[in-house]
């Protein structure tokens, strides 16, 4: 249960809201690099933190993220012409560069300085890995670039997809640290999904449906440990890192690629779920990459040419009651990603958390909400830089390990949850 004002604090990320200001402290994914595939390609519309923006790649290969609307009379620059060195509004021909600076106002005299004084809001847009990242905060406090491992390994070792989710970002994010739903909702996938199946750890998952949890602070957020019984009186631990505000990783399974998510607010009722898979040691196999493209594992099958899942709320997520009966899909919905999105969207665009009945097993969620709230208020009231801004906080990994009962997962796996470039993940 959360009081209504705290639910509003956590779910509202528009300009000048406390959570909105918190998000504006971080570099975050703005779009996939594939959305702007070449110099001078068509611009794309995108909305982030309730701001409507246009991203484009100019004729020289520079990336820009600027206000969607022309300074003249408010036309959407998505209709713009991507010309030599800038984006030109098709209405009266005003032209802007990637920083939002107006370069040309055709109605003015040739030697007029009018254009110099016109500048649209703009944010940096930087390609790292398969993602174009932006920072929407005060330029004076722009932090160093992000250092998440999935975006730093060689291109052949990583794959990122995204899907539109029709719910507030918190609903999606809370699923990312809610380890206890996996044994139910995703149980079918542990046996059949090409990117999950076959790991020894899956047996522990399926044999012990009542995990124990430990929730511990990390420098950038939390580590949530879920513990299940293994053989010989040992424990199987699945460790999920959260880096504030919205980066989570799923504990690995065997030698499968390791995966995770970014949950990015579009506005208060929609978000992007970015899903990545990478292997720190080797290239993804052609079969693995194809499975990801086909929407297996944490990825989704999207309507071609869009980032909207094929199975969505307009078609009841292609609910298959017979597969539900057979136990093939526990909820009757196919695929890990849509199993999550279907249930999270079913809660409504912004779930009313005053009506929840949480249990102690939800402690990861309780603690994460508290950390977000405290960080947002400390930023607002004292200007404190929140955890997760420092790139050192990004260098975490999930892990799946078997430990003797007496060992604390934090001590025993301290090294396993840090990034060691080129070294394998700790996985069972």
């Amino acid at each position, binding site marked *: *249960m*959360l*009081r209504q004002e705290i639910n509003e604090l956590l779910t509202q990320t528009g300009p000048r809201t406390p959570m909105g200001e918190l998000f504006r402290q971080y570099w975050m994914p703005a779009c996939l690099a594939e959305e702007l595939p070449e110099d001078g390609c068509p611009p794309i519309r995108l909305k982030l933190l309730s701001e409507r923006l246009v991203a484009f790649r100019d004729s020289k290969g520079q990336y820009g993220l600027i206000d969607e609307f022309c300074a003249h009379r408010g036309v959407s620059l998505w209709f713009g012409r991507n010309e030599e060195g800038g984006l030109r509004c098709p209405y009266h021909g005003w032209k802007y560069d990637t920083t939002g600076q107006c370069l040309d106002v055709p109605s003015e005299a040739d030697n007029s300085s009018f254009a110099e004084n016109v500048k649209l809001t703009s944010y940096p847009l930087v390609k790292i890995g398969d993602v174009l990242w932006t920072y929407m905060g005060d330029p004076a406090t722009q932090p160093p670039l992000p250092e998440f491992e999935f975006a730093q390994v060689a291109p052949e070792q990583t794959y990122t997809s995204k899907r539109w989710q029709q719910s507030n970002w918190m609903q999606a994010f809370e699923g990312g640290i809610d380890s206890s739903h996996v044994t139910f909702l995703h149980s079918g996938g542990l046996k059949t999904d090409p990117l999950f199946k076959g790991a020894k750890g899956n047996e522990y998952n399926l044999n012990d449906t009542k995990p*124990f*949890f*430990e*929730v*511990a*602070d990390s420098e950038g957020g939390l580590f949530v440990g879920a513990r299940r019984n293994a053989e010989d009186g040992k424990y199987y631990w699945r460790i999920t890192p959260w880096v504030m505000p919205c980066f989570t990783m799923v504990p690995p399974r065997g030698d499968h690629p390791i995966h995770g998510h970014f949950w990015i607010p579009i506005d208060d*009722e929609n978000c992007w779920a970015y899903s990545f898979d990478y292997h720190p040691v080797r290239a993804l196999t052609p079969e693995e990459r194809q499975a990801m493209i086909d929407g297996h594992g944490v990825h989704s099958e999207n309507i071609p040419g869009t980032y909207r899942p094929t199975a969505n*709320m*307009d*078609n*009841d*997520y*292609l*609910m*298959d*009651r*017979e*597969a539900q009966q057979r136990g093939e899909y526990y909820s009757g919905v196919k695929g890990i990603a849509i199993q999550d999105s*279907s249930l999270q*969207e*079913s809660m*409504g*665009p*912004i779930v*009313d958390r005053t*009506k*929840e*009945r*949480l*249990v*102690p*097993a*939800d*402690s990861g969620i*309780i*603690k994460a*909400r*508290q950390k977000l709230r*405290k960080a947002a208020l400390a930023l607002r009231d004292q200007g404190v830089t929140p955890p997760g801004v420092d790139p050192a906080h990004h260098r975490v990994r999930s892990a799946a390990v078997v430990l003797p*009962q*007496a060992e*604390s997962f*934090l001590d025993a796996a301290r090294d396993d949850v840090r990034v060691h470039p080129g070294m394998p993940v700790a996985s069972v």
Partner: protein
Amino acid sequence: MAVETSLLSSCARAATAAEARFRIDRPIRPARAARIIALDERAAGIARRAAAVEWASAQFLVCEGVAGGGAIGDFLLRGIEGEPVVLEQTLAGADVVVMLATDDRGAGCAYALGKACWERGIMTAGLVLSDESGADQAVAALRPHARVLLPTADETDLTELLAALRA
């Protein structure tokens, strides 16, 4: 794949955002009869401060020790005002026990209480708020039975947890 066409009214997508948000508005009863048991001196202070807030049914206690083998009658338990409390009675009707430790002095109680709750099917949660000296033994003693353990808790975690549980 059998996909049936849904009637609009049964579709996952409510017709309007207001409809999607709609919930039957009826007061929700307290979900959990919670007992909060402090395992050491500083933990008792934290429990006392938390007890000053109004709760639906939470009861705050201090465990001062466990005599003998940790049988149900062996616990030295007091209420927050210092009155003696019988564990057997306080556990009857409880469905969650939150244990609070700030150092290793409560480790013996932690294990024995965890076991007593486990045998009665009562869920336990462990909050450990330690300073530099640490509370490794308390954490280890809580671990076997606590469904949830917060080894790096701070004082607000207690009230947040109790509020979330509608205690």
